[in-house]
């Protein structure tokens, strides 16, 4: 084998999860044309299989020791990337499981849907491993453009269209900022390679005594672009609308996947490229964290639409993640990663429950509809309660440890007041989560709502999410170790 061929094979190997997803995506796309409507759900299973195979590929990659780069350093395969891949793939897999019956019910069962989901996953995977802003940009766009379409997948529903349009316009708007940021960073440092930017900044600091102002400006604009995607204040505005309007399984995906992947990119850019400027961006993160938590929680307090409430809740959670982000330490990275893992499970889990509860045309999303649900559907209610408790941050759930590690990281960096604000916020947040539980458990059963049987597919998905949530809540040690290793690999050269 020639060295060239060997290198190309290795490149392909290192990129295997994305390739697997692409292949499955294309296969589904093609198969769609030849599959009769009645059998379309098998495409969903194929997509799920795709995520499993991709996971297997990720698993295989995880045996790589140290840090490898592919395609002349454009892609970095390290523990960090692998961890984020897993998180993203879990989110995608769960979302697919939630979609199969949903689409059936809505009469939207199409191969394109799953193909788009898988392509979005490719984008997220690229984001996770990007070591070059071009790649980051492309990854971001792949996941975004797929998301725009997915958000509008329920074309019959006006709110789905609206969500799609808003997401598209604002998403592109933010992308423009992101790109301009990249341009400025490029202008300031002469490179767009993430690790090279670090060196350029560092040498500029050495020569001129400070970070180039252009790079700084660029960082600010990058923060805008990425902050938009991870839904932090004041760029959170679009999220509730989009999350509410999108088909629920898509909401699950949107709330989890892109957020996790974009956070990964943010970590790379902020922690690696602008590591030496952390005293500057720290304040941006700090302010944004406080705003995000407060806006998310306060606005959620007054929501009666549970789906929208969960959308606000995911804003609040982005705030908690920022608390860990603000720490600026390796522990902080680990905390962010762990939080993402827990968050993906509980958030997707919660939205999956809504997938079922909403019923046809997402009719039942008001809190009133869930009155006395616990009597009629005890297991589903228990499941929902579990996710809500986890979102709330009660022990024995993943959410608790997520919050705990976040607090720990922030306190470790002496961010006492930030943690206190986060703590108070999480109590405020408790109110609206508990209100749903109040409705389900304490109220008299609602008359309008007729429960339907939970489909096996969804049950399977919910079981995974629930077990995962509890696993992270009871035995977080292993995942935490992985997160720490990932954090370490992110920061190692």
């Amino acid at each position, binding site marked *: 084998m020639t060295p060239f061929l060997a290198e190309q094979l290795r490149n392909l190997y290192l990129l295997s999860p994305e390739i697997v997803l692409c292949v499955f995506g294309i296969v589904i796309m093609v198969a769609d044309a030849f599959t009769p409507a009645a059998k379309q759900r098998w495409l969903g299973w194929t997509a799920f299989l795709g995520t499993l195979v991709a996971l297997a590929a990720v698993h295989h990659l995880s045996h790589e020791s140290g840090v490898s780069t592919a395609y002349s350093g454009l892609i970095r395969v390290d523990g960090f990337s692998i961890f984020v891949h897993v998180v993203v793939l879990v989110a995608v897999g769960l979302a697919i499981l939630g979609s199969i019956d949903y689409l059936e019910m809505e009469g939207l069962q199409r191969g394109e849907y799953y193909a788009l989901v898988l392509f979005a996953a490719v984008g997220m995977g690229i984001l996770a491993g990007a070591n070059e802003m071009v790649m980051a940009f492309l990854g971001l766009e792949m996941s975004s453009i797929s998301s725009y379409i997915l958000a509008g997948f329920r074309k019959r529903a006006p709110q789905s269209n609206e969500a799609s349009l808003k997401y598209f316009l604002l998403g592109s708007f933010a992308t423009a900022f992101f790109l301009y940021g990249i341009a400025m960073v490029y202008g300031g440092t002469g490179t767009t390679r993430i690790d090279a930017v670090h060196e350029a900044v560092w040498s500029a600091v050495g020569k001129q005594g400070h970070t180039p102002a252009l790079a700084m400006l660029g960082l600010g604009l990058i923060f805008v672009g990425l902050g*938009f995607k991870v839904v932090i204040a004041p760029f959170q505005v679009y999220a509730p609308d989009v999350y509410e309007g999108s088909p629920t399984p898509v909401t699950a995906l949107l709330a989890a996947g892109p957020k996790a992947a974009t956070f990964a990119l943010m970590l790379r850019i902020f922690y690696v490229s602008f590591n030496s400027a952390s005293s500057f961006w720290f304040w941006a993160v700090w302010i*944004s964290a406080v705003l995000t938590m407060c806006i998310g929680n306060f606005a959620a307090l007054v929501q009666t639409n549970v789906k929208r409430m969960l959308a606000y809740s995911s804003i609040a959670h982005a705030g908690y993640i920022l608390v860990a982000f603000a720490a600026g330490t390796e522990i902080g990275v680990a905390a962010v990663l762990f939080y993402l893992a827990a968050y993906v499970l509980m958030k997707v889990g919660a939205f999956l429950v809504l997938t079922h509860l909403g019923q046809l045309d997402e009719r039942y999303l008001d809190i009133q509809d869930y009155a006395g649900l616990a009597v009629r559907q005890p297991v589903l209610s228990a499941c929902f309660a579990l996710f809500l408790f986890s979102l709330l941050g009660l022990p024995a759930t993943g959410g608790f440890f997520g919050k705990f590690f976040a607090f720990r990281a922030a306190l470790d960096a002496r961010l006492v007041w930030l943690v206190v604000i986060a703590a108070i916020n999480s109590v405020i947040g408790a109110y609206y989560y508990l209100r749903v539980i109040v409705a389900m458990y304490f109220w008299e059963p609602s008359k309008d709502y007729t429960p339907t049987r939970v489909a096996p597919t969804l049950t399977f998905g919910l079981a995974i999410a629930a077990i995962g949530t509890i696993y992270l809540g009871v035995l977080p040690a292993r995942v935490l170790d992985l997160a720490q290793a990932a954090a370490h690999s992110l920061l190692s050269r």
Partner: protein
Amino acid sequence: MFILDSLWIILALPLLGAAVNGLLGKNWPKSAVNSVGIGSVALSFLSVLEAVREFSQLTPSQIPFVRDYFSWIAAGPFRVDFSLQIDQLTVVMLLVVTGVGLLVHIYSVGYMAHEGGYYRFFSYLNLFVFFMLTLVLGSNLIVMFVGWEGVGLCSYLLIGFWFLKKSATDAGKKAFITTRIGDFGFMLGIFLTFWTFNTVEYKGIFTQLQQGSFAESTLTLIGLLLFAGAVGKSAQIPIYVWLPDAMEGPTPVSALIHAATMVTAGVYMVARMNPVFSRAPEAMFVVALIGALTAFYSATIGLVQTDIKKVLAYSTVSQLGYMFLGCGVGAYAAGVFHLMTHAFFKGLLFLAAGSVIHAMGGEQDMRQMGGLRRHIPITYWTMLIATLAIAGIPGFAGFFSKDEILEAAQSGPHANTALWLLGVAGAALTSFYMFRLIFLTFFGKERFDEHKVHVHESPKNMTIPLMILAFLSIFGGWVAAPHFAGGTDYFEKFLHPVFTQYAPAAAGTETAAEAGESGGMQLLHALTGIPVILGILGLLVAWWFYIKNTEAPKRLAASLHGLYLLLLNKYYVDEIYLAVIIRPLLWISTHVFWQTIDVGLIDGTVNGAAHLARQAGGEVREIQSGSTRSYATWVLVGAAGFTALLLGLWWKVR
């Protein structure tokens, strides 16, 4: 040494009786219940007798005779054993408690024969005897406190025995709560004692007092705090108010608890703690002052009461005042002596009054009686004896004890003329209102409807206790009689060690004014002393008013209308307490604490915060106006803001 070594038997018997009756007696026949009730107390009494016999054989160094049973409280250095002790003072109290207790039990068989809750009654009575014995037998303040509170409980239960009557339950509650106010002081006294002496054992406290020197102010404070407990329990000014109300209970209860034993616990306690008081003259003065004031004050109220038991109740308050006066002027023995004689004659008075009430079919208003001496002669005679005794007519028990107290107040080491005057005046009033009671009840014409009320003499099981007590009311005082003839006061001699063993050295061993005048002169002096004269005067006035000239009281009442009303309404003390303390407290609790602070302020703040949060949520959601352009503006705000922030920081650092 059978009983002395097992002092607990004395306690255990009544407790057992109480438990058996209380738990099992509900469905038993009355005879079974009362044999358990009486039997246990009788056995206890016999044990006491045996204990006294054994006690008399102890050498002085063995006294007080202490027995530890078990460690009851052990918290760090605060250790309390459940231990009992017996000394001369205890002996007196034991005899009184079990003796009178036994008589009252026997009496109750007849008195309560027709009442419901018979088993309950005997159970409570036995329980009372148990606690009272605990009180007097305890060898430390805590065990005493147990008995102290326990008798309070029994008092509560027995006053409210007829729990269907609101007045009865009110009275029981009032008794308990009011005495608790005193107990508050008592508890603080115990705390201070422990703080000072690091122990609560009598022996330890007294020994330290003797050996070390303690600040008089501390001792005074201890004395006053302990005395506060006594004031509550023994119904002295200003918290005597519960005792008259306590007459809502069955009469045997009044006799035993609210005359003979429980209410004297305060006196016992002061006497018991005499080493402390002896070193705190100011505390002693307060004791004497409160005692004298109460003695006079409640006697004035007794003048105009018409309820036979109320008269006796105020009389009890008054007599308790004498006892404190005695203790306060240093004549502890006299105080205890009066305690004993009072137990006899006041117990008798109550039992006899009970007999009257029994005979009258429940009527307690003396204005509805009259001429009863022909119908119930035994009751009449015994009651007369008791009245003579309480009025201090020479020869009767009360004469000896009361005179001794007044004498000490006049000429003892802590003599105080003003207090003496109060005491003497009280004595005159006592004589008056007691004879008023006798005359109204037993003399004159029958003021009741003989057809409705079938007046009958009480059964034997009621009259025999009366007779025994009458005997004691006459002769019970003679143990101290020789004193008046210049001889030895046997009672005092017996108690002498208790009050001298730990007495301050300077005070010496004087207790009775034995020296000086010759015996004959003394006797003459005593017999012609002002108290006696006034006592007889009181009798005569009462005779004048209620036999001779029955219109006189009305005229007097009319001419002194204000004073009369004041007395009749007991100086409006209950009303004042209600208006000044209870009502405001309840009002503040309800309106200020509960409604304003709890509901308004705290919950208001919390709910307000919640409301505010929701309102903030309502405001915050306005950001989400639904307009894409406004969303873009927010992104722009962020872009401008954060770039400005970053470059601002950059500018600063550069």
